[in-house]
């Protein structure tokens, strides 16, 4: 049995009960409900299910059909994409984050590049919505450290930037466009040295 903390967590107790008593007996029920009376009803309810499952262990296994699997997958995607949309809706953009810290892209580059220089062009791509996720680990950590944000907020801001990129100068023959590229491409195309590039691509 688990050591009893001052305020035992329901999940911890019931998971421990599940592991300790896969086929709960009367003695198991009495011992665990005495030890955790505040969860007695739950312990008994879970025991009932466990005994039902034990009784069915030798029965043929049923499999869900493809229609059920497809519907479940569709609902799963909805959950994941809804969560992402919520994350983006609740986020700040990079411009707001910089403005609130009285910074601009050159200042951000100086702060991030204190130990190893980072090209302003890479940061300009990030802030301007011209960089796709994922980014390098060191880069992510550095930006989050300087801006004092979580990686969740970083990627929410990146999604916002991608959704509303800052386009280049207008051309006489075409509307201005913003072409997003990968983090790796942005780093390799910059004016950084080979060692700086290896550093920011987490290759050393």
């Amino acid at each position, binding site marked *: 049995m688990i050591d009893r903390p001052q305020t035992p967590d329901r999940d911890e107790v019931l998971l421990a009960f599940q592991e300790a008593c896969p086929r709960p007996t009367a003695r198991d029920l009495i011992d665990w409900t005495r030890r955790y009376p505040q969860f007695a009803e739950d312990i008994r309810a879970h025991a009932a299910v466990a005994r039902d499952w034990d009784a069915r262990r030798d029965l043929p296994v049923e499999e869900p059909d493809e229609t059920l699997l497809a519907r479940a997958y569709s609902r799963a995607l909805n959950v*994941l994409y809804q969560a992402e949309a919520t994350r983006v809706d609740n986020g700040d953009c990079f411009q707001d984050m910089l403005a609130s810290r009285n910074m601009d892209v050159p200042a951000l580059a100086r702060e991030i590049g204190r130990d190893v220089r980072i090209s302003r062009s890479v940061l300009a791509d990030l802030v301007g919505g011209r960089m796709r996720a994922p980014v390098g680990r060191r880069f992510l950590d550095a930006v989050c450290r300087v801006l004092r944000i979580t990686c969740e907020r970083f990627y929410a801001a990146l999604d916002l930037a991608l959704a509303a990129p800052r386009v280049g100068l207008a051309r006489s023959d075409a509307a201005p466009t913003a072409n997003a590229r990968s983090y790796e491409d942005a780093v390799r195309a910059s004016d950084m040295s080979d060692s700086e590039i290896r550093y920011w691509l987490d290759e050393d």
Partner: protein
Amino acid sequence: MDASTSEEPPPDTTDFAGWKRAAEQGLLPRFRPETIFAALQDLRFNTDSGLRNELARALSNRTYRLLWRRVGRNHPNGGQDIVDRVHLQVFEAAARPDSADGRGFRQAFVPRLEYRLKDAIAKEARERRIPDEEGARLQGKPQHGARQTADAAGTDPGPEEEAEAADGEDALPSKRAWDPTLLDGVCAAEQQIDVDRFLQAHIADDRKRLAFRLFMDGVPFKSTRSESIAEALGIDESTARQWIKEIKAHLKAQIGDLA
């Protein structure tokens, strides 16, 4: 390399390129669900929706199959509502890495899934339960008769308890044999009923099913010397006896239909 299976280990959960390759090679179904769950979380910021969808599909199919096999068809809608609900909980947890389930599924996926499934089944059982005044009486509420006096005072059992002991109801579980009257009415040895299947199919109340399973284990209704059905389930003895009596009558009626 996994020595026991000689299979290639999964990529690190943050290795986008590795998971992309694994998905293209059709390897996802081989990996443990914890690993796929962790990769789905750790790569959630990746804008490559193709990989995310493949990870989600692999996890979704694995989860749904695990749940479907566990849930009996004796629930409303054949158990599909319960399966759907718990299946969604997995993906809500994947989207919230800091939640208890978001951490728990990464560590031990199947135990956590079974735990959440038990919660869902228990919740449905509570909601379906028809209020039963006798069955709802909990231990500790005032009772009447010699039984309480003997229990409370810790004295030697009075005449009623001695009579019960003589019936064998209060016998130690190891000495209690299978109740032969249970199958009274079975006209031939070959006409045996799977009691467990009967319970699943005909006894909707999970507490009553558990009581009857303990009864089949040989546990007495009430005892001052060992465990009892009453104490295990937090009900009084008369409720325990009534439940078993009801189920036995129902079982005998079923046997009668088949005779």
